[in-house]
């Protein structure tokens, strides 16, 4: 008998406790088994879904954005490969060395690398982190040739929007920008998601839906570290549709060249259908900057610049029309029967209305002028008289017939309506009644009246195309190619001037005289073999008196830029059956005849070269 052997009493107590212990253990194990029941049977579905979610990832296949072409199929905008530098953190052996090497090869700032890595710390170690987008050829070559020294570094090729001619036509084409929250939740961008680049202006915006294409996707199985094990399913992306514009690249280029160093706008249109051939707004910007990721300084410089490079002056620039407005007043006078072709007025350089006197631009006056001379030589006095006879309300009524004071309907930007004043408008706006002197200022295109270059081109086209007001359009077709179109150009006739043919002929003749008469103000747009018709306009920005004062103050006896006149020229060619209508505006360009008319001539010259003038252009 050992000391530790049980005596019967303690044996009983032991056994009793063992029973209780057994019970406790069975209960605890039941809890454990119930726990498995709860996880696997009750919530099994939920956890199965979670495990699938863990395992299966959807990778994006971004679609190629459609190209933008000129009317002849020349590419304005396409996509080019962007070689992007990525690092797979898990595969890097020596971070210090890698960062130094990258700095030596590509000049990548070590701090920025660390910053980017920190930002994506939460990602699984096998998912690549982008270090640098769009490497140069040189950088790419260096990376490729040192690849063996850079474990973990990979180069991915992405598609990047490429505006081939940089600043050219940028106001038409527009630019891309990252989609914002508001746009995402608007429901208008189905299929886009955060981080996508979408059209923010111009054609890129107008045709965003078609240009964008349809995103594809890849269902892949990944392991915990993010490494792709296999591709389960794949859906190819569908590239976006191409957009063919009505713009002619060569005409556009000539117009842009003529505007270098100037501010202003040029619009050229086919007068028979409203197709825009040229649209220039100067200064311009390079939309490539927006794709590459514009830095804040450049952006601020652009957005806040007094030169407003982002504004499309052709649509949104509102200017006094100057003497170009005389076309409207002349037709109003003829239609209303206030004047006749033969009526003459003596211009001695000054016109008196009550106690005020109004000057003609030509000192000493034009002498005896009829309507033909009044337009061709742009006599102000003739129109002062006509204006007084017509009154502002009738003038404004006719201006509206030309589509002034309302949007032309071209929807590629923030189009402005301009302003056509009348009595009611002034009373409402200023609470004052209209003054007779204001009518006189209005007929020579000063005072309140404001127009945009695109309105002017539509108006001058109407005079020569039988009175048709077309909605200007910029798209010929949208689709995979010309044979597989989703959308095709259809001319939109908004209305007709409804004027008598003989009245139109009178004005047309006078406008031919503007260019072709020995005394015509627009003679610098003259061609030997093509009859160009047009009208010049010179807009005073400040009064002549003030202009002279400022000139004297300036040390080199020049008028300060801001005080110089705006120069207008509107034209059609050939006058008998116009193929092209043009409006040129040069801000602070001086005289319409000397600054704007030569620019129009250059464009017409190119149009002749490209057979727009002598042949059916379609």
């Amino acid at each position: 008998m050992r000391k530790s052997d049980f005596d019967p009493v303690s044996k009983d107590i032991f056994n009793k406790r063992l029973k209780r212990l057994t019970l406790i253990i069975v209960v605890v194990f039941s809890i454990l088994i119930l726990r498995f029941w709860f996880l696997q049977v009750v919530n099994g579905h939920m956890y199965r879904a979670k495990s699938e979610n863990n395992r299966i990832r959807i990778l994006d296949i971004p679609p190629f954005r459609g190209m933008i072409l000129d009317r002849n199929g020349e590419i304005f905008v396409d996509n080019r490969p962007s070689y992007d530098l990525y690092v797979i953190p898990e595969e890097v052996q020596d971070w210090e060395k890698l960062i130094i090497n990258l700095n030596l090869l590509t000049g990548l700032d070590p701090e920025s690398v660390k910053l980017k890595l920190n930002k994506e710390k939460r990602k699984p170690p096998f998912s690549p982190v982008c270090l640098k987008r769009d490497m140069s050829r040189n950088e790419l070559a260096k990376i490729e040739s040192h690849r063996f020294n850079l474990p973990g570094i990979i180069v991915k090729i992405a598609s990047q929007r490429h505006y081939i001619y940089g600043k050219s036509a940028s106001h038409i084409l527009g630019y891309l920008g990252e989609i914002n929250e508001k746009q995402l939740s608007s429901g208008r961008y189905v299929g886009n998601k955060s981080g996508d680049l979408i059209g923010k202006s111009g054609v890129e915006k107008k045709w965003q839906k078609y240009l964008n294409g349809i995103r594809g996707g890849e269902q892949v199985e990944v392991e915990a570290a993010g490494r792709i094990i296999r591709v389960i399913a794949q859906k190819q992306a569908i590239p976006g549709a191409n957009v063919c514009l009505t713009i002619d690249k060569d005409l556009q280029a000539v117009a842009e060249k003529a505007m270098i160093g100037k501010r202003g706008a040029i619009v050229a249109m086919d007068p028979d259908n409203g197709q825009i051939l040229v649209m220039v707004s100067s200064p311009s910007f390079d939309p490539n900057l927006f794709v590459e990721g514009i830095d804040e300084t450049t952006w601020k410089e652009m957005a806040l610049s007094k030169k407003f490079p982002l504004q499309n002056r052709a649509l949104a620039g509102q200017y006094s029309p100057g003497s170009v407005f005389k076309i409207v007043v002349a037709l109003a006078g003829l239609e209303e029967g206030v004047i006749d072709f033969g009526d003459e007025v003596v211009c001695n350089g000054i016109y008196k209305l009550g106690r005020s006197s109004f000057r003609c631009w030509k000192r000493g006056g034009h002498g005896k002028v009829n309507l033909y001379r009044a337009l061709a030589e742009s006599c102000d006095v003739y129109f002062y008289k006509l204006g007084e006879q017509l009154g502002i309300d009738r003038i404004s009524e006719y201006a509206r017939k030309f589509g002034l004071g309302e949007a032309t309907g071209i929807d590629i930007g923030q189009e402005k309506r301009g302003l056509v004043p009348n009595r009611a408008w002034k009373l409402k706006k200023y609470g004052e009644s209209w003054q007779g002197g204001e009518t006189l200022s209005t007929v020579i295109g000063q005072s309140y009246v404001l127009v945009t270059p695109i309105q002017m081109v539509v108006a001058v086209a109407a005079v020569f195309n039988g009175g048709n007001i077309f909605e200007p359009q910029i798209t010929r077709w949208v689709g995979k190619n010309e044979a597989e179109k989703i959308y095709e150009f259809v001319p939109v006739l908004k209305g007709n001037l409804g004027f008598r043919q003989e009245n139109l002929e009178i004005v047309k003749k006078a406008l031919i005289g503007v260019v072709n008469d020995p005394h015509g103000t627009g003679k610098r747009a003259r061609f030997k073999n093509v009859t160009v018709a047009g009208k010049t306009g010179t807009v005073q920005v400040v009064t002549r008196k003030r202009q002279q004062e400022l000139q004297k103050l300036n040390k080199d006896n020049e008028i300060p830029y801001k005080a110089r006149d705006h120069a207008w020229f509107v034209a059609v060619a050939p006058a008998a059956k116009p193929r092209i209508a043009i409006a040129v505006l040069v801000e602070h360009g001086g005289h319409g005849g000397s600054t704007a008319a030569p620019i129009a001539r250059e464009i017409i010259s190119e149009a002749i070269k490209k057979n727009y003038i002598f042949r059916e252009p379609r």
Partner: protein
Amino acid sequence: MFDRRLIQNFDWVLLLLLLFIATISIINLYSATYAIRNAGGAQVFTKQIYWFSIGFIVLFIMTSFNYYRLERFANAFYFLSIALLILVLIAGKVTSGSQRWLGFGPISFQPSELAKISVVMVLARFFSEEGGYREYRLRDLGRPFILIGIPTLLILKEPDLGTAILVVVVSASIILFVKINRKSLLIIVLTALSVAPFIWLNLKEYQQKRIMTFIRPDKDLFGAGYHIHQSKIAIGSGQVWGKGFLKGTQTKLHFLPEQHTDFAMSVLAEEWGFIGAALLLCLYLLLILWGLNIAKDSKDKFGSITAIGIVAFIFWQVVINVGMVTGLLPVVGIPLLLFSYGGSSLISTMAAMGLLMNISMRRFMFQGSYIPKK
């Protein structure tokens, strides 16, 4: 020399249960390391087969002597393990921030494994020395507390929180079993509660984080809560029948961490479903209940209390590990005994199982010779 009754009394039930668990463990380890089979995973699998073979040899060695002798050597054994625990703090290998391993040439082992068994044995010896039944009061427990405290503190110093907790809960289980005075128990519990804040402040930051994660597991799914989150997904996604052998995606794609060690049970549950998990738990329950049966049949207190201590080991390791992988308990690095990969702990577990079998085989040694006291 060799008693024939030993053969007759050989505990086939215990052996079968162990073989069963070992087989499931090896199959499961094959799957758990399948995805990394070319990166050392295959080695893990074959190594575990070796460890089990050695383990069974150790088990038989542990049955070859009468466990009565251990009662005499318990103290010496205890002091040896204390000495080794001190030695490991001086000359142990440092792996991932803790000093747990002692190396002797090619063999290395954790002295804390030895300490676990020796604490059970000294406690069994202490509580069996009293001839009759009594209720222990606080003043009687001074010696046991010291016996438990010294190795616990040494293990905490390594640090190895998991093993330290295990030593404490197993010892506590033994003390509770041998019956403690109710008032004394109350005092101990209150003292423990008042000391708790100081322990909290002395915990390592990662340990505090684990406990916080346990309280708010959804708070940090990619940081501290990641393990448990992924383990629950693995287990839950197994549903009733499992995804099939080698088909567990959580395992194969490495979403599940520590899959062949601490989270081996999650691998089983993912691939074999509720059926597999419940089966394994039932095997452990049977093992425990069988152990209690051995304690009941033992004719002496030392054997009985030792058996209960070993059962407590099995019980607590299963509960802590399974509780951890299912998100019922905070993450404590305790592998599932007999099931997770790991040589040192497997050998010590098998030694303990051998001791249990030893007690079982000698339960009828005194058949017919027992004369009740009048």
